[in-house]
Each structure stands twice: as structure tokens, then as C-alpha cells.
């Protein structure tokens, strides 16, 4: 934890790399949410751009396929007036080590300022942050089963917008928590922001091995777990898990863990339904719920741009020399 902290924050406590929620602090998370809030007005401008990162070069370094995350990172960078390079590298398990470092050295030689990295291996973004040149910031856009911190922050942003505050909320995360980097980052962020009751609802095979360590309440029955919740976050069921022994059929999964109007009625009347996308209609969530009035799934996508603008501009400022500026 200490080590992660040292890597993520500079000597003044400012964000330098954004790799995981762990090791950060409540105030920093609030600063990210507040800064994101102020970026929301940029989309109301005729010219949807601010000149903040003009002249900076941001590389989207994707070793794993992604559409939504990559495009919202790209849009966020462009709205900050940065130049963006998209590089998709098909990662084979053996193509790491020296090859990865060589890729980094080459990008550094092109005078890039920030890497936004997605990788199938947990810890890959830490590795890159450790080995990148000192002037480069690294943002984790999802690494293996480890963390997806910008997704968690856009979810926190959405919750704050809809519910106002965090303290009194009951939040349930439903689905494959065990293999989900999104859920891991969400749990850390929710508890850091003061949510008292975080529940995970999943079949026994999809619960993390030591749920107590996360400070969550575990339910195996969806109906029981949904009672009185304010926010329910559905996770995408990765179909590749079906082939393993950990799950019954899609149909059976939907019967037990799929979110329907009827099950949702057990939650609070003003419950908010979230999903990081892409959604599997009829597997983890019924279309009527996904498209219904309590769903904020598309708002989450819009908020992703503002939150990523905030994280990128905050990470970029850690390289600045500390100086007093006059205004007027």
C-alpha cells in the first residue's frame, strides 16, 4: 500500500500516476469529483474544448480491446486540447518484458507526456509507471483483474450527482465480483468516500476469496441482498466464464442473478441502477430495467468524459515546478 502510494503521488501529495484507488485519500477523491464537476460545462460550449493541455501528447496504449473506455479517454484528451495517439497492441503473454520496455522507450523518444494504459495482466500499469521516464504520467485504464480506477470514479461521480452524498447509502454490487477490476476499484472508492453498507451479491464461485478484507457484506441471494438498497451496480457477466466450471447456463444465471423489475421492487423506491457496460441484455439485466427510468447507464458514459478530463489534467500538473502565480 505504502509503495503504491509513493508511486501515485508526488512529494507534494499531488496525483502523478492514477493506477488504483488504494493508497489514495478521501480528499483527493473529492478533488477529482469537484474538478470533474467543473468540466461538465465544457460540453455546453459551442467549441467543446478548453486549452488546458495544449501542446501535450497523450498516448492511449491499449494492449486489450476496448471501445467505450478508449473513446472516452480520447474525447477527454481532445477536449483538453491535447494531441492524442491511439496505439493498439495485440498482447500475447510472451510479448512483455523487454518488448514492452522498448515500446515505452520509443514513445518517450517521441516526447509524449502521458500514457493511458489498458492491459490484460494485473499490475502491468504499475510496471509501466515504475519504468517510464520521470516526466511521464501513467493512467490505468484497466489492468487484468486488478483495478479500473477511472471507471470507479465516474461511478462515484454518478452516485454523487443522483444521491447527493455517500454516507447513508446502501450500495450493492451484483455479479462476478471475484474477477472484476471494476468492482474492486468501486469497493475501495465507496468505502473511502464513507459508504457504510457495501454489499456484494454473487454466487459462491464468484465471490472474492477474502471478502472480509474489503469490508463488504456478502449475499448469495439477489432478493435478500437488494432489500433497501439505494444503488445497485450490475457487473457484466463475462461469457468466457461460462465455459469454466464456475457458472451454470446463461438462462439459469438470469433466473437467479439477473436484475428484473420484479426483483428491483425489493430495493428502495428511488433506487438507482448502474452498469459499467457493455451490457448483456437478458443475462445480468433485463432490457426493461436497463432502459428504464431508474437506469443511469448512459449518464455514466457522459460522466466518464468529465472524470477522465479531471484525472488527466490533475496528473499532468504534478510535473509543474512549485511557483507562486499572480493573477488579476
Amino acid at each position, binding site marked *: 500500500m505504502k509503495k503504491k502510494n509513493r508511486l501515485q503521488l508526488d512529494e507534494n501529495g*499531488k496525483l502523478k500516476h492514477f493506477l488504483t484507488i488504494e493508497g489514495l485519500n478521501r480528499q483527493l477523491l473529492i*478533488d477529482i469529483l*469537484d*474538478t470533474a*464537476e*467543473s*468540466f*461538465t*460545462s*465544457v460540453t*455546453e*460550449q*459551442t*467549441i467543446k*474544448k*478548453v*486549452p*488546458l493541455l495544449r501542446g501535450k501528447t497523450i498516448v492511449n496504449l491499449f494492449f486489450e480491446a476496448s471501445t467505450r473506455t478508449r473513446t472516452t479517454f480520447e474525447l477527454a484528451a481532445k477536449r483538453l486540447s491535447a494531441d492524442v495517439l491511439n496505439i493498439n497492441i495485440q498482447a500475447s503473454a510472451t510479448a512483455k518484458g523487454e518488448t514492452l520496455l522498448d515500446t515505452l522507450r520509443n514513445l518517450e523518444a517521441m516526447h509524449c507526456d502521458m500514457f493511458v494504459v489498458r492491459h490484460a495482466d494485473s499490475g502491468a500499469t504499475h510496471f509501466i509507471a515504475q519504468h517510464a521516464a520521470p516526466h511521464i504520467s501513467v493512467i490505468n485504464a484497466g489492468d487484468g483483474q486488478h483495478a479500473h480506477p477511472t471507471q470507479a470514479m465516474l461511478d462515484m461521480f454518478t452516485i454523487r450527482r443522483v444521491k447527493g452524498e455517500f454516507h447513508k447509502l446502501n450500495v450493492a454490487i451484483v455479479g462476478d465480483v471475484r474477477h472484476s477490476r471494476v468492482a474492486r476499484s468501486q469497493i475501495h472508492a465507496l468505502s473511502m468516500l464513507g459508504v457504510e453498507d457495501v454489499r456484494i451479491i454473487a454466487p459462491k464461485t464468484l465471490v472474492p476469496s477474502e471478502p472480509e478484507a474489503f469490508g463488504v457484506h456478502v449475499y448469495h441471494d439477489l432478493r435478500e441482498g437488494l432489500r433497501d438498497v439505494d444503488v445497485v451496480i450490475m457487473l457484466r457477466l463475462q461469457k468466457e466464464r461460462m465455459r469454466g466450471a464456475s457458472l451454470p447456463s446463461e438462462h439459469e444465471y438470469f433466473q437467479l442473478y439477473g436484475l428484473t423489475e420484479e426483483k428491483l421492487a425489493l430495493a428502495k423506491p428511488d433506487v438507482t441502477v448502474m452498469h459499467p457496460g457493455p451490457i448483456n441484455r437478458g443475462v445480468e439485466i433485463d432490457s426493461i430495467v436497463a432502459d428504464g427510468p431508474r437506469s443511469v447507464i448512459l449518464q455514466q458514459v457522459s460522466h466518464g468524459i468529465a472524470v477522465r478530463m479531471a484525472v488527466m*489534467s*490533475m496528473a499532468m*500538473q504534478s510535473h*509543474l*515546478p512549485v*511557483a*507562486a*502565480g*499572480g*493573477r*488579476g
Partner: protein
Amino acid sequence: MSAKELDIDQTLDHVAQSLSSILESRNIQAPIMIGIHTGGVWVAEQLHQRLKLDEPLGTLDISFYRDDFTRVGINPQVQPSTLPLSVDDRHVILVDDVLYTGRTIRAAFNELFDYGRPASIMLAVLVERDGRELPIQADAVGQHVSLEEGEQIKLQGPEPLTLTITQA
């Protein structure tokens, strides 16, 4: 440390009077008033009342347009800008508390033009002091203040609004 308080009501009246005679001489009917965060918004609220303007007040936070981001970074207390109406082809009155180097106004122009193309912009400030670093001047000024070495002028508010010169 000593402090000298200036008469804020008189100063606001003075800006309001200058503004209304400019609006009259230029024959401008329905201007849009926009205050610059934070002090400029407080001043704009007062002027908006005094001039009995019909159009809702807009606010501008120029943090993302400052020319010193590469030196000082962003302030987490940034507020969203809110412009309730399109500024396209409209006459805009931009309001700030203190006009000093002119850099804030330069940033405000840039942000405003990202929202549209106003017919005209005029600048109203509560106080102007020497020290311009850009060729920018105000159309309506509450009062001109000459500060000695080490003196600072500060507007505090929103309730009550006070304007003081302090010596560090």
C-alpha cells in the same frame, strides 16, 4: 497590519451609473451580464439588481483558460461556468472585481468566444489599479486605486460585501 475599508455602495453606484449611460449612448436594449468567479460574480449580482436587467446573470470560471496552468496547475475549487443564454450576437457586459494585470480578462475573452460570437463585449470593474501587462481597459470603473508597495486590495463577500486595502 493595517486595513482601510472603502465605501462599497458608493463604488457600486458609480459603476452602475457609468454602465447605464454607456448602454444608453450605444442604444443597447437587453445586454447579458456575466460575472467572473468569484469576486466578479458578487459584483455582477449587485450591478444586475441596480440596473434592473431582465436577462439572467451568467458566471464564468476562467481557470481552464489561464495562461499560467503550466506554472501553477488547476485549483480544485474551480466552479462550472454557467451561461443561461447563448451569447451569439448579444451585447455582453463582463464584470470583475479588480482589474490589475489584465490576464484574467484575456482568459475570459477566450472562454467567452468558445461559447459563441457576441455582438460586443464591454468590461465593468469595481476597482482598477496600475500594473497592466496587456492592452486591456475597462469601460466602467467604480474607482481607481493607487496602492503603495506591499499593499493589497481585496473584495470579501458575498454578505456583506466589503472592499479593503490591507498592508502586509
